[in-house]
């Protein structure tokens, strides 16, 4: 399979008046078309920085980012659904197209279809306050999908949800991403979440973050995240990566 994205020796230094901090250093990995990648690491290790750089929100200090084709569109799903209270669900999901001045009847219809397919059809003209936490997250995902991205970046997308909702929503999001055949990179501090959802887990070290290990997750009978969690191999991977994370309390 072709590489959709290749990151080589990525480095980011943050500057403030007290000095400089190397957030990430020597980060290299490849993402193939249709792959689901998870980046895990201790909190504050600079996981999100990688996504910020990939989506052009921050400048890299050094290294290379090579895309597999000429124009790669990036969709970014944030920690918090960031829905606008004054916009209807439909208008919220269309905001990306609006900003890119790319909104036409056909694309609008496509988004309406997505909303219908993923159970938000009856809320199209409602406001975010009418949605549950899980529905809001689904809405945020459809907003990201609306611009038809080649790569989806998910930055701790479930961290604002309670545990039960979190499990249900990660199944939801996983199914949607697979059904829409999207390539995705998820950043999370939750090891179980990473193993249950991803094809490949990249483990980062403490600051300055470098790659400790990359695991291919080969679960037999791989299914949705909640079912993957019950597989025997799941805990094997868990124990292996847990050692890597080197957590001291």
């Amino acid at each position: 399979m072709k590489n959709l994205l290749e990151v080589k020796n990525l480095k980011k230094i943050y500057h403030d008046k007290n000095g400089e901090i190397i957030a990430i250093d020597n980060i290299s990995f490849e993402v193939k078309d249709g792959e689901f990648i998870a980046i895990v690491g201790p909190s504050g290790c600079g996981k999100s920085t990688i996504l910020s750089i990939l989506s052009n929100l921050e400048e890299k200090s050094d290294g290379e980012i090579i895309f597999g084709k000429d124009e790669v569109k990036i969709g970014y799903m944030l920690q918090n659904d960031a829905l606008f209270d004054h916009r209807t669900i439909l208008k919220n999901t269309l905001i990306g197209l609006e900003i890119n001045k790319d909104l036409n009847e056909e694309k609008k219809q496509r988004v309406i279809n997505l909303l219908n397919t993923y159970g938000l059809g009856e809320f199209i003209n409602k406001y975010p306050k009418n949605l549950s936490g899980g529905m809001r997250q689904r809405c945020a995902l459809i907003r990201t999908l609306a611009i038809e991205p080649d790569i989806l970046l998910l930055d701790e997308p479930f961290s604002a949800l309670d545990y039960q909702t979190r499990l249900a929503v990660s199944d939801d999001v996983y199914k949607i991403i697979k059904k829409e055949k999207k390539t995705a990179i998820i950043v999370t501090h939750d090891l179980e979440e990473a193993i249950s959802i991803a094809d490949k887990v990249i483990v980062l070290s403490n600051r300055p973050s470098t790659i400790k290990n990359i695991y291919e997750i080969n679960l037999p009978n791989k299914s949705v995240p909640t079912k993957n969690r019950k597989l025997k191999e799941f805990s094997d991977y868990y124990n292996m990566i847990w050692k890597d994370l080197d957590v001291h309390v």
Partner: protein
Amino acid sequence: MSMYSLEHKEFLKKNKRKKLFILFSQIFILIFLIVMWEIASDNGWINSFIYSSPSKVLDTIINLHNTNNLYIHIFTTVYETLISFGVGTLIGIGIAIILWWNKTLAKILDPFLTVLNSLPKVALGPIIIIWVGANTKSIIFMALLISVIITIMNVYQGFISTDVIKLKLLKSFGANKFQILTKAVFPTNYSNIISMLKINISMSLIGIIMGEFLVSKKGIGYLIMYGSQIFNLSLVMSGIILLAIVATVMYYVVYTIEKLIIKD
């Protein structure tokens, strides 16, 4: 609705009784104060020449009404207040947008704004009269100074505390500064700005009365000032009561507009 439990009905009844009690107490205090004021001045417990009395105030207001002066004074004050309120709000929001757009400019101007904000604007009165002239323009200018600066500071503060996640979201879609302003900063501060209007209408009124104290030939501020100069304390009291009514009505008009605009 009749399906409610007895306990719930009792709860509703209790709530209603409490509300009635509060309303009743409010009306009672008002009537009590007015009656005591009247009795005290009628019986000579207080000097009615200095403290006036409700009946005298009423006479004064009826007198103003009969000579057709009442409405000219009220109209003048309301008119001046509305102009300074409208212009002040627009200029204030405009400058807040400029400062949000250019953070360096905002940092440069910050100490100047802080000083201007803490300076009692009435101190600028004499200068304003000399520069702008002893006329209505001076009065409006005075009120503008008060409302504009507070608008700039409040609206700008709201603008820069716009949810960073929302800004990040728009930036991730490649939004430019204008789009960020119109799609996130302005709409998410909408209710903030509307409640700003409530403060602004009061600020404008304060400014206008201050201006009318300094230079005016009509208006409620003029009535109060003129009354004190000729030692007609009933006129002063009438002015204050008219002002209280005008202020309350204007506040409630803005409040109602706010309720209408922000439905939820």
